[in-house]
């Protein structure tokens, strides 16, 4: 078979980017971001992006890099705080923003991958989120109809992946990655460890390879932490 493995992020992006495209980018905060692919997208220079991602990075990291490079036209997110660049671009009118409740965002993406064009949820009823959307009563409660989200390209980050594209995520770095992997025309995964076929337990695959078109071994992960919270060592004795 024509292999799915690419030598690096730049090579993996070849032929799948175009100006004005819709991009899904995994991650929550700085956890589980496709850092190599984001850097390669900056070098690639693709413009006018509509980006679907829970957040938009933080100073100098994650999607912030594309934002700072003027490549993003619109964000579909649930939370864009702690990001001064975002705020100033948005307030100046240089950036469009569609805010979604986080669970609605996640479900819209899942629906995109699952062939479900619309679904009903209680989330957002009676708020600006429901404005202009159909509502309906089920069992005496009001629900709002939300629609699917799909993308031209999804970039996801996993912990381990094999040559077939089977992926396993690590801890809370999983977040939106498995859902986004299902909802784009092309999905590229970067992994911390590219392993041979057979190295992953079939019962433990989080993203089956069918959803992954291209895969690469990433490098130089920043492992950056936004809010470092710890407890004192001394507490160990009392634990």
């Amino acid at each position, binding site marked *: 078979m024509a292999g799915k493995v690419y030598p690096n992020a730049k090579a993996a992006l070849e032929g799948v980017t175009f100006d004005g495209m819709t991009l899904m980018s995994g991650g929550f905060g700085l*956890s589980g971001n496709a850092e190599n692919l984001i850097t390669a997208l900056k070098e690639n220079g693709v413009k006018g992006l509509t980006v679907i991602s829970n957040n938009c990075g933080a100073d100098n990291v994650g999607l912030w890099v594309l934002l700072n490079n003027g490549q993003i036209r619109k964000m579909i997110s649930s939370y864009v705080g702690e990001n001064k660049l975002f705020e100033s671009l948005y307030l100046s009118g240089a950036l469009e923003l569609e805010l979604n409740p*986080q669970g609605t965002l996640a479900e819209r993406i*899942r629906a995109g991958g699952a062939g479900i064009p619309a679904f009903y949820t209680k*989330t957002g*009823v009676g*708020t600006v989120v429901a404005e202009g959307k159909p509502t309906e009563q089920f069992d005496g409660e009001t629900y709002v109809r939300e629609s699917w989200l799909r993308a031209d390209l999804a970039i996801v980050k996993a912990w381990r992946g094999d040559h077939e594209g089977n992926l396993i995520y690590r801890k*809370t770095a999983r977040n939106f*990655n498995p859902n986004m992997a299902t909802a784009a025309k092309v999905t590229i995964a970067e992994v911390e460890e590219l392993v041979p076929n057979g190295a992953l337990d079939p019962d433990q695959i989080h993203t089956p390879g069918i959803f992954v078109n291209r895969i690469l071994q990433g490098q130089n992960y920043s*492992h950056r932490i936004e809010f470092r919270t*710890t407890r004192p060592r001394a507490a160990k004795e009392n634990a």
Partner: protein
Amino acid sequence: MPWTREQMAARAARELKDGYYVNLGIGIPTLVANYIPAGMTVTLQSENGMLGIGPFPYEGEEDADLINAGKQTITELPTSSYFSSADSFAMIRGGHIDMAILGAMEVSEMGDIANWTIPGKMVKGMGGAMDLVAGVKRVIAVMEHANKAGKSKILKTCSLPLTGGRCIDLVITDLCVFEIDRKQNQMRLLELAPDVTLEEVKAKTEANFSHG
């Protein structure tokens, strides 16, 4: 004397029950974890995709792949589990979380809550707050009773854009505790902070409430 932040968290913790699955918001609600009674099992959910939040890590043991919804480093427990964002909010939206304890900017006597935006002032987003107030079985707001100018944040009707309508069951402020009957649209004063009087609460509360 009004309750301190720590005392408000301790009061909120008294609402917990053994076996509960609970989501704690950012700020005072996060402190509630420190007041879970000994011997009681309360499992904390983090909406970015985890059940069973452990304490903060020891210095040097932080893991960038292990954060809570406030993006703080945390640890796991022997019974923890991780899942995707879609699965996490299916859990929340599906009514599987017993209680959410959240901060608030305004609460109305009908149980409406506003805690995600101040138009023209704040570009942040609602994150998971709208899902939590809509999906969790029992929602508790923990908040200052009045703003710095002394203006009541417990209102007849919220002035800020809503996070959710008729979804708050209990409000814990620095002055008192209200319970809200969402079916009847009625708010009732349940208890007062030490030395706080009914008159003081009445003076500082725009909303209608019953008491006694």
